[in-house]
């Protein structure tokens, strides 16, 4: 894991609750739904912008997600099914997306 990824995940860890996982840490085959978007540090762009880009690509609270594929190097980026759309996203950026497994409230 790159320093960037590690530092970003540490910064984000405090905001994480028991049921919530980070999409950026889930492996291929994982299914669930988006529970929220959480600011991450060290993104290339301001949080306000990243949040809106993620929203525009369908990563909105309640959206069904499934990790379909992982990239060839370090399992990065990931191809995520978001409702009916398939979106490629880097794990570092997907750390901003909190997800919940089905059946967890």
């Amino acid at each position, binding site marked *: 894991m790159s320093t*960037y990824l590690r530092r970003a995940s540490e910064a984000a860890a405090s905001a994480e609750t028991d049921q919530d996982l980070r999409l950026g840490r889930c492996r291929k085959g994982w299914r669930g739904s988006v529970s929220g*978007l959480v600011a991450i540090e*060290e*993104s*290339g*762009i301001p949080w*306000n*912008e*990243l*949040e*809106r*880009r*993620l*929203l*525009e*690509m*369908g990563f*909105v*609270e*309640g959206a069904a997600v499934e990790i*379909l*594929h*992982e*990239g*060839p*190097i*370090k399992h*990065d*980026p990931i*191809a995520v099914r978001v*409702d*009916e*759309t*398939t*979106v*490629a*996203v*880097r794990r*570092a*950026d997907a750390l901003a997306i909190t997800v919940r497994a089905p059946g967890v409230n």
Partner: protein
Amino acid sequence: MSTATLSVSVPGIALVGCPNCGKTALFNALTGHHQKVANYPGVTVERKEGAFTTPQGKTVRLLDLPGTYSLRGRSPDEAVTRDVVLGRLDGEALPDALICVADATNLRLVLRLILELKAVNRPLILALNMIDIAKRQGCEIDVERLSIELGMPVIPTVAVRKGGVTSLLAEIDRLATAAGTGAAGEVTWREPTSQEIRDAHKEAERILKACAFRPGDQRLTARLDNVLLHPVWGVLILLGVLFLMFQAVFTWAAPVMDGIKAAFDLLGTQIQATMPDGLLRSLLTDGLIAGVGSVVVFLPQIMILFLFIILLEDFGYMARAAFLMDRLMGGAGLHGRAFIPLLSSFACAIPGVMAARVIENRRDRLATILVAPLMTCSARIPVYTLIISAFVPAEDVAGVVSLQGLVMFGLYATGIVSALLVAWIMKRLVWRQVAEPFLMELPAYKWPRLKNVALGLWQRAAVFLRRAGTIILAIMVVIWFLSTFPGAPAGALDPAINYSIAGMLGHWLQPLLAPIGFNWQIVVALIPGMAAREVAVGALGTVYALSATGEEVGSALQPILAAQWTLPTALSLLAWYIFAPQCASTLAVVKRETNSWRWPAFLFVYMLTLAYGAAFVTYHVATWMLG
């Protein structure tokens, strides 16, 4: 303003939609061959405009806007879409109506875009595109209800067949009549907040439910992706595709190229036989026919390359390639999306540099622009082909791969590796910055449509031929002039060109390039080659045709080079051509894209340094190895 414009001039309609929604296919279906590809003034975003006539006989201008998920304009391309839609772009009238194009199988994101577009207050039509594919996949939607929910006409279309297009045309007629009564209002759009985007998603979700939307079966795409995005097979297939592309460029094009070459040769000999000897005949045969012929002959190779690029794009594979390459590109400090501009640069650095506009972040874009000219563009193919066929034997390695193709592959590979290295040095050592997010839709696979592929190819060929017919033609005349005047003095022993302006220039500059093994003929050819790389081949033809004695004129350049150049010189020129910034138009486009002379100047200096260094090393290593 809009009503007045409508009554006095031709109404304009703009096509808006997410990427991969089949917008361009619909544009092609509506306008056919009546389209014009140009640039927006000031920016280099491609502007595609066409015209068509509605059943009621109205002529309508149609503008194809770059695909976008929102009106926020995160990249220069998306900014053009926003500015045209909002009527903010100078010299571009506010469209009288918008046709929003949606992929019927994938409605959610475009519904949100439509909700945003409603704030523009222009008459809107929703074209529910690819409805045939949607039905085949078992996708369902209540079109009437959708129309009621959105408050706009919804027309199911199949861009590739006339059926849907006819009802779309009828709707445009109806709209054009209604528009006269003042259907358009004030533009009330402003950039939405994240909460507003969330609310729009909720509204889109409600509409989808109300219209009993059922997504289609995407299992075929999923099954294909299991192979094509596989960490091992996917990468191998990508390498295979690229390798096939280069072998194809080399082998498939050969028969057609021979035909074109023969035709130009025949033309040359005909003129030689019928015209009296003199300056005009020399201009026609040695300047024009020899020069332009040696460039046009590469049309088949350029067409094959573009055929691959267009097919891969239409099939939906380009996004997969970016996905597979992202980490590798990221390792070099490039964005995964840089893959597409860099791949386009294999055809020509100019569209490549221009395609870098899909990268939002300025430094990511700059890094891509600065390394794009290192990718082997098609203009280098004539030079590579000429030297390879003159110096590399036409043998097969292990009975399968042609040796010439292998050398070509090596030249391409060197270009790629250097591009990645240079990008890495720039991003890691010069800028030291954090990566821009990589967010990209992986569209469902689709069969490329023959008509769209053919139209795309035809446009590329036209651009190339226009270049060959204008810039290159003009340069050929200039070179012919430079290499003909002043003529040789009476009783001169050397070939006439030795006494010409070009000869003098070549002799002056030759000492500078002697350490890398270039003779004065090469140096002469490199001077006009600054305008366009492939011109150097024509220039070599002119230089050698003119310096040769009678019976050698018109014979192929290849054996002349094989006889007159040493192998180290040939290899050194190949190495030079991997790096040399020999293209004034690329430098001009980089200037336009970066809006400063600093970057093209930097590009020129670093590429020239690399070229000289690489040629120097190649020449001396080759000389030493050959003893």
